[in-house]
């Protein structure tokens, strides 16, 4: 298999490499990429333009016919599908800033010498990330049920009745599960970025009399802006895809319908509704919506993006 070194006919300084070596190296990825990333996108687009038409009473079998944009029209007429979008956008607009603020706060706190037993606390903040998100949802599902939850029982005993599964708050109970799972990984990424900033950067600020808080907000945070952008962006993409937590919590409450989020609607349409063509149209719409939101975030962070680009 070894691609033996080519003869030194060309200039050695730039590597007398057999010209097809790099292509062999990237081939596995490119093939898999085409097969399992590009092809599904193409399949989704093509599928979304077709529909299964059953003839007569369904006895005469069915045929797949080109229907143009009819599936998209149906998707856009589906109020339950559409209503999922503002729901996940609202969810993301609250969950992402809260999570990133807490993660940044912890990271900055850990970066100072102020916290004793730092390793232990980092461990506890990070531990939930090792719990698969559906297992986390199962766990919190128990803690959200008054019959088993020690937390709800505790609040009850001091006169506060909480019902995290009520239709008005269930969205934030889902957000809590995601928050619990993901603060740790974001904290670690931001903390690692902070640790790689040379300490001398802070000396000047200290000599100028800046306190810990000012140093943190005006020097440390800007220094790790690319990391903040990266984690924020991936969090935003994550919220639009919201599926695991509500799908699991759905089993313990009637306040989460099967089309609660766009992704759940796609899943329900594909499996329960048995209409993969409509589901494909919905997947295309969700994919485009995610793309638009991601590009908006990137544009809004143009300046930091440029710096991130240099970082790469």
């Amino acid at each position: 298999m070894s691609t033996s070194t080519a003869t030194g006919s060309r200039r050695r300084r730039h590597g007398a490499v057999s010209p097809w070596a790099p292509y062999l190296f990237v081939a596995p990825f490119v093939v898999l990429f085409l097969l399992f990333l590009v092809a599904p996108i193409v399949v989704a687009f093509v599928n979304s333009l077709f529909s299964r038409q059953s003839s007569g009473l369904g006895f005469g079998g069915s045929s797949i016919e080109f229907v143009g944009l009819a599936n998209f029209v149906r998707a856009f007429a589906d109020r339950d599908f559409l209503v999922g979008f503002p729901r996940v956008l609202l969810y993301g607009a609250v969950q992402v800033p809260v999570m990133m603020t807490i993660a940044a706060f912890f990271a900055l706190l850990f970066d100072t010498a102020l916290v004793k037993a730092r390793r232990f606390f980092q461990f506890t903040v990070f531990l939930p990330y090792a719990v698969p998100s559906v297992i986390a949802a199962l766990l919190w599902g128990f803690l959200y049920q008054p019959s088993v939850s020690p937390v709800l029982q505790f609040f009850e005993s001091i006169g506060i009745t909480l019902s995290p599964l009520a239709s008005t708050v269930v969205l934030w109970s889902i957000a809590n599960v995601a928050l619990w799972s993901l603060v740790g990984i974001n904290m670690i990424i931001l903390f690692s970025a902070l640790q790689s900033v040379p300490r001398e950067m802070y000396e000047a600020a200290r000599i100028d009399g800046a306190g810990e808080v000012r140093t943190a907000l005006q020097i440390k945070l800007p220094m790790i802006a690319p990391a903040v952008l990266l984690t924020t962006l991936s969090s935003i993409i994550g919220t639009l895809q919201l599926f695991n937590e509500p799908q699991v919590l759905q089993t313990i409450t009637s306040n989460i319908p099967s089309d609660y989020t766009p992704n759940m609607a796609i899943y329900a349409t594909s499996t329960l509704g048995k209409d993969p063509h409509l589901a494909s149209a919905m997947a295309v719409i969700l994919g485009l919506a995610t793309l638009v939101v991601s590009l908006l975030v990137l544009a809004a962070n143009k300046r930091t993006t440029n710096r991130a680009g240099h970082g790469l």
Partner: protein
Amino acid sequence: MASDVALPPVRDSAPVPDGRRRTTFVSGERVSRTWMVIATAVMALASIYFLVPVVWLVIAATKSTGDLFSTPGFAFADFNLLENLRALSTYQGGIFWRWGLNSIIYSVLGSALTTLVCAITGYALAVYRFRGRTALISVVLASLLVPGTVIAQPTYVLLVTLGLDNSYAGLLLPALVYPFGVLLCFIFAQSSVPLELVEAARLDGAGELRIFVAIGLRLLASGLVTVLLFAFLGSWNSYILPLLVLTDAELMPLTVGLTGWNQASITIPGLQILTVVGSLVSIIPIAIVFLSLQRFWKAGLTAGSVRG
């Protein structure tokens, strides 16, 4: 391009000297003791939030179904952990352990292969200049914006077409496409594989594949731990694709199996405690592996992915 930047060491927490003064020094920095107490108290409060569900899980796993509902959540009742584990092992012919084995197959085999694919791709992008290189980098970057779970449904349709649905291959192959991992490897390779070294090996007559294995993989090792762990967690957590692709219970990973039990526990009361014990059993090994490896991949994160 390639500057062999030494990895900045991740600072370990320095021992805190017991000072009687109002200020104290930690790794050369002057620290107010009042603020230290406040900061530590804040973290202690916060850690309760992160620990409560886990502590509840540990306690709940030792209870019988009756005690689960009739005793306080944070109090131990009759110790039934062993009975629960026995029930977990025998229910439906011990299918829980089969799910565990499946999860291990999907994550260990999957993440190892994924890391290898990412490593060789990222290495090639950093070391070689070839036609289509810039285009490939752009495509990898752009594909980061493609939401994974959105293409789950079309991926399922495709797997059905290929006849790969409801099979190990059907779950393993799509996981091998990990553009973020390729990007990380590309960044790692740029900063840690000196072109001069590759050139020297070439002059010594080594083949390209051999250079990659002997030099590239070795220099990339610390960064690859990061990719490996993210890929591992990705497949360990994977839910929507196996949910769509697998109909055979024998092939399911823990996530799908346990949520299925949770769903069924509405009508089968004994399943509730099995879900609890099963969750605990499924978390313990991964938590140990993950946390014991964290210093490796934390160093990896520092070295490459997110520098300013």
